[in-house]
Every structure is written in C-alpha cells, then in structure tokens.
C-alpha cells in the first residue's frame, strides 16, 4: 500500500467550498428526511384515528386508505429519485472538486 497523502483536515472543513456543500446538503437532507418521516407516520395515524376518511370509497371498491398506502410507495420512490438527482448534479461535483484538490495538495 502506497503511503497516503497527508491531508490538513481542518483546512478542508474551513474551505468555503466545503462550507457551501455542508450547508446545502444539511438543509436539503434534513428537510427531505422530516418530510418523509411525517408523511409515513400519517399512514398508521390516519388508519387509527381517521377511519371514516380511510374507509371512503373512491374508485370502485378501492378506498382512500388503500390509495394512500399505494401513494406511500410512489412518494418513497420520488424522494429517492429527487435526492439522487440533486446529489448527482450538485453535491458530487463539489465533493469531487474538494477531494481532488486536497488529495493533490496532500501528495505535493
């Protein structure tokens, strides 16, 4: 194994680019996580305390509760898709840039 480049980690996290990445990611992830958790727990809470709504027939015998449970799958997939698009388009570029930069500096 080749010797690892020596990296000044304090400089990395003080780097303005890292600060931008950190801020953007933190806000985005926290928001998305809270939304997902709240949306999911609406299912058991609704099934227990809003039975009349859940029993309302909407599409033939298919009721609101069943459609809402199916929506959970669609929303979970959309969250995954949305996150990976944003991460792939934005976070990865910043992270690669910082990593390449400091790995190069560390070797010099």
């Amino acid at each position: 194994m080749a010797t690892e480049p020596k990296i000044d980690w304090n400089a990395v996290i003080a780097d303005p680019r890292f600060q931008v990445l950190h801020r953007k990611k933190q806000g985005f992830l926290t928001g998305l996580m809270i939304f997902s958790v709240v949306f999911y727990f609406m299912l058991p809470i609704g099934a227990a305390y809003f039975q009349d709504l859940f029993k309302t027939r909407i599409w033939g015998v298919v009721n609101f509760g069943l459609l809402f449970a199916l929506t959970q799958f669609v929303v979970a997939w959309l969250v995954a898709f949305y996150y990976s698009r944003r991460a792939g388009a934005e976070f990865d570029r910043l992270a690669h840039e910082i990593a390449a930069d400091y790995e190069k500096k560390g070797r010099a």
Partner: protein
Amino acid sequence: MHIQNRKWITRAVAAVATVACGPAFAQGAVAAEYRWLTFAVFAAIIGLTMYVTYIAAKRVKSASDFYTAGGGVTGMQNGWAIAGDYLSAASFLGIAGLISQYGYDGFMYSVGWLVAYITVLLLIAEPCRNIGRYTLSDILAYRNNPRAMRIVGAISVITVSTFYLTAQMVGGGVLVKTLIGIDYEYSVIAVGVLMLAYVLFGGMVATTWVQIIKAILLVIASLILVMLVWTPYGFSLPGFLGDVVADPKVQAKVASLLGDPAKNMSAAELGQRFLEPGLYFKNPIDQISLGMALVFGTAGLPHILMRFFTVPTAQAARKSVVWAMGIIGGFYVLTLFLGFGAAKNVGPQAIAAVDAGGNMAAPLLAQFLGGGPNSFLGNFMLAFVSAVAFATIVAVVAGLVLAAASAIAHDLYVGVYHGGDIVPPQQQVRAARIATVVVGAMAITIGIAAKGQNVAHLVALAFAVAASANFPCVLLTLYWKRCSTGGIVLGMIVGTVVAVGLTLVSPNVTYPKAVREASQKVLDGEAAKRSAIEAALASGDAGAVAKAQTDLTTLDKAVKKAKDDMAKVEGKEVSIMGLEKPMFQLKNPGIISIPLGFLAVLLGSLLFRDRRSEELWPEVYARQNTGILASKATSH
C-alpha cells in the same frame, strides 16, 4: 487451494443431498408423488448457487475479499443483493400471508419496510461507504476509542444478528417442513450446511451472488403469479379487488374476525371491511412504535450496513439504495396482489389450515394457479415457489452469519485481541473462516433448540435493538461534533438493555395465567358450540350442513390448541421474568427505547468528553461528505 476448495464444495453438496433425501417424510404441502419435482427444482437452484460459489472461491484471497468482495460490486448488483438480503421469508411469505388473513392491515405493514430505506439513503449509506471498511465498529472506531468501540460494536452486532438469525432458522425449519415434509431438525441442518458452504468458500463474493440470484428468482416468481391473478380482470385494480370483497370465503373470514358486531353487517359490508384498517392492528401506539423500529432500525442492521462496504464509491452506494428501493417497493406492490389473490382463490381459512400464521398463502396460490393440488403444473409452480422460499432463507442467513463472523474475527480477534497490530492477510481470512464455522454451528444449534418456540417477535426485536442502539450511535458519530466514546458506550448499553428489557416484560412472552384463562374459556364454550353445530348438521339444509362441517373442524382445532396450551403452562404461575401479567403493554419497545438510546448518546458524550473523538471530528466530517481518500481506503 482451489482443488481443496472444490473437494470441500463437492462434499458439502453431498452432505446436503443426504440430509435432504435421507429422513422419513412427514406430510407436507407437496403431494408425495410430486416430491421429486420439488427436489429437481431445489437441486437446480442449489446447483446454480454452488457453481457461483465455486467461481467465487477462486477470487477470495484477502480479508477485504472475504468481508466485502474487495469493494468490487457495482451499484446495480449491490441493489439486487440488498433486496436479496432484506426480503426474508418474513416479508416474502409473511406479508402475503398477513394480507390473505387480515386484508388492508397486512398491506399497510409492508410500507414501513420500504420507507426504512429513505433513512438509509439520506443519512447512512454514503457516509458509511466513505469512512467504513468491513464492519459497523469500523465506523464507530474511526474517531472514538477503537478498543472500546470494537467491543461494544461487536456485542451489539452479535446480539442483533443472533435474534434475527434465530427467527430465520426456526422459520426456515418450519417452512421447509410444512412445504415438503422434511423433519424440522434436518431442515435446519440443511439450511445451515448450505449457508456455511456459500460463506466459508465464497465469502462476500458468493454471498452477494446468492442474494442476487435469489432476488431475481423471487421477483420472477412473484411477477408470474401476479400476471396469472390479475390478467382475468384486464389489469383493473377495482375489478380485481371488487371480486375479492365479493368472495364468500373472504366475507366469512371477516365475520369470524369481527365476532358479534358482524351480525348486523351485510355480506357486501363484510367484504368491504377486508379493505379497511383495523382487522389486525388493534393498538395504534404499538403500530407507530413498530413503524419507528422499522424506519430507523434498518439503517442499523449490521448485515445491511455491511453491504455498503462492497461498492467502490459513495455514488455506487447511493445507486444501490435506489435500486434496492425500486426492487423492494415493487415487490411489496406485487405482494398486494399475491395476498388478496390468495384470499380470493385459495381462501383465508384453507391457508390458515396449513399454517396458522398464513405463511403458506403465496405457495398455495401458486399451486392453485397452476391447476390445483393434483395437476403437474400446479405442483411444479408450488415446487418453484417453495425452492425460492428456501433460497430466500439461505441467502438471508448467509448475510447474517457473515456480519456476525466479521464482528468476531475483524473486531474482536484482529482489533481487540491483536490490538491493532498488523495481522497477515492469510491469518485474517483464516480467522474469518473459523468465526464463520462457529457462528454457523451456533445458528444450527439455536435453530434446533428453539424448535416449537414462537420466535416471530425476534425479528421485530432485532429491528428495535438496531434502531435504539446502533442507529443513534452511527448517526451521531457521523453528524455530531461532540459525540464521544463515553456517549457511544452508554448509548449501545442503554439502547440494547432497554429494548430487550421492555420486550421481556411485554405481551410477547408467555404469561401462564392468561394462557390458562383463555384456554379455559374455549373449553367452557365447547359444549354449547358443539350442540349448535349438531343441530345445524341435523337440519338437512345443504348450506347449513356445509357451514357446520367447517365450524366443526375449526372447533376441534381450537379445543386441541387450548388443551395443548394448558399442558404447556401446567404448574407454572409466572412468566420467565416472574410476572403474572405484562408490565409494559406494547409489543414493540421502539417508541420508548429509541429516544432513550439517543438520549444516552447525548448525555454520555456531554458527561465524558474524549479528546480523540473531537480531534478526529474534522477528518471524519470531511471524509464522510467528500469521500477524500475513500477509494484508497479499500483498494490495495
């Protein structure tokens, strides 16, 4: 080395074949004259996975190969493998069964298992890939005291894996016995020996491929069944479900679940009730508690975390979770059709007659769709689904054993016993293989010892411990600057002890007094019911007689069960914890133990500061976010 491996694999196959063919058969779901068909399908699948193991064995040279397939798995492959690792018999057979018995609640239950992966995707997968190597403890040890982390991490990994493993082994034994009638003990040994062959020779490379193959077979089998179930309705959801709720078998099941209130309901109302919540879940708080354990526990399951060390980059880790979510979610949507299809075509009562938990819903549906119990195609399809179920158990068990073995060999032996000294690669691989054999032997022993025990709640307990101990520790190590060794040690202890402790005093364990009272009630009511049935039988009305005959079998079963239960608790007054009735009323401890786990990490970190933990924070935070040096952390 290779020749030796090949010889061993041949022997392992021979051992399994002997085990599978030797013993006397009890009555299984597969009729005796078609049993050869089941074995042919089993042999084909085992042969394929063994071939893969043989190829894989050549590639396993270093510890990194053994634990993480050298980090050379692609995102898509890993996504399929995660699905293969995660879709245990509990979800493949259990959820379809739950839907077939309780309708809506069964489907609602499946949602949490998918949503769990949002937590994994957003918070855990990529950071873990960037700073971890082989095990959960590697992540914790990066900034905290390595020795302490390896000890508490290993204890937690072994605890979670053992709970999960026991549930899988017992479930697997029962399943194989029910399906093809091999004795329980031999079934457990067959599962154990096969799994050992995969892990021992092929390490993570073979385990990954076994999981991929199993996931593909599972999806194919489910797709075929759903096509057959749904095509007659022109792929209309209301059309299909309209037929389900109009089915007299389904209506009768709902009536029996509701009891007295059902008397004032019309047949149409009873059927519709099957699509409404509340037939299975009675306590909403308990259900939220279970939801919390699933949503936060998956991200702390050691065998799932380990899968993220097998991919080369954070991007691949992300891609693998997205793939896994597509496969797992898609599978649960298919399960909706399997469960309701089985309820309509086979009938909830007929399914429960083979297995009280409803686990046989999918296999029996396959048999029905192929043309029934006496047709070749029906039995071929049953055999195929059974073989997939068997592969499912083996693949999940392999992942679990690998996770537990890595905790013993990598964390305890290399990390603690050798205290971070350099251990030669060959010795590391040997330690890993020895640990695998030990864990495998333990799994077989526990599986046989736990025969007849109700272990279904052990999977939920594994999730609860993972959510209350592992998840807070990993999350706060990755994201909180002040997190320290003291916090992690306290968090691991409090999370595990509270989750296990609350379960021990919960309604999950047996309370002899309650069992006796419930059984006595059944026996007291027997005479009245029997005379009502006899009156119906004598009435001469064809419909009433048919109904009375099913009632009679149900009654006989209930009476037998009540007598058996009475005998089991004979002479006992209190539960294993010395209680007459549950002290904690919820079946799942998550809602209490998860917040306490977090609180313990917070308090422990604030009380016991650790300079190393704080000094290494910039490095951990920079690495987990940017992946600096990450690709070099595993490649040699």
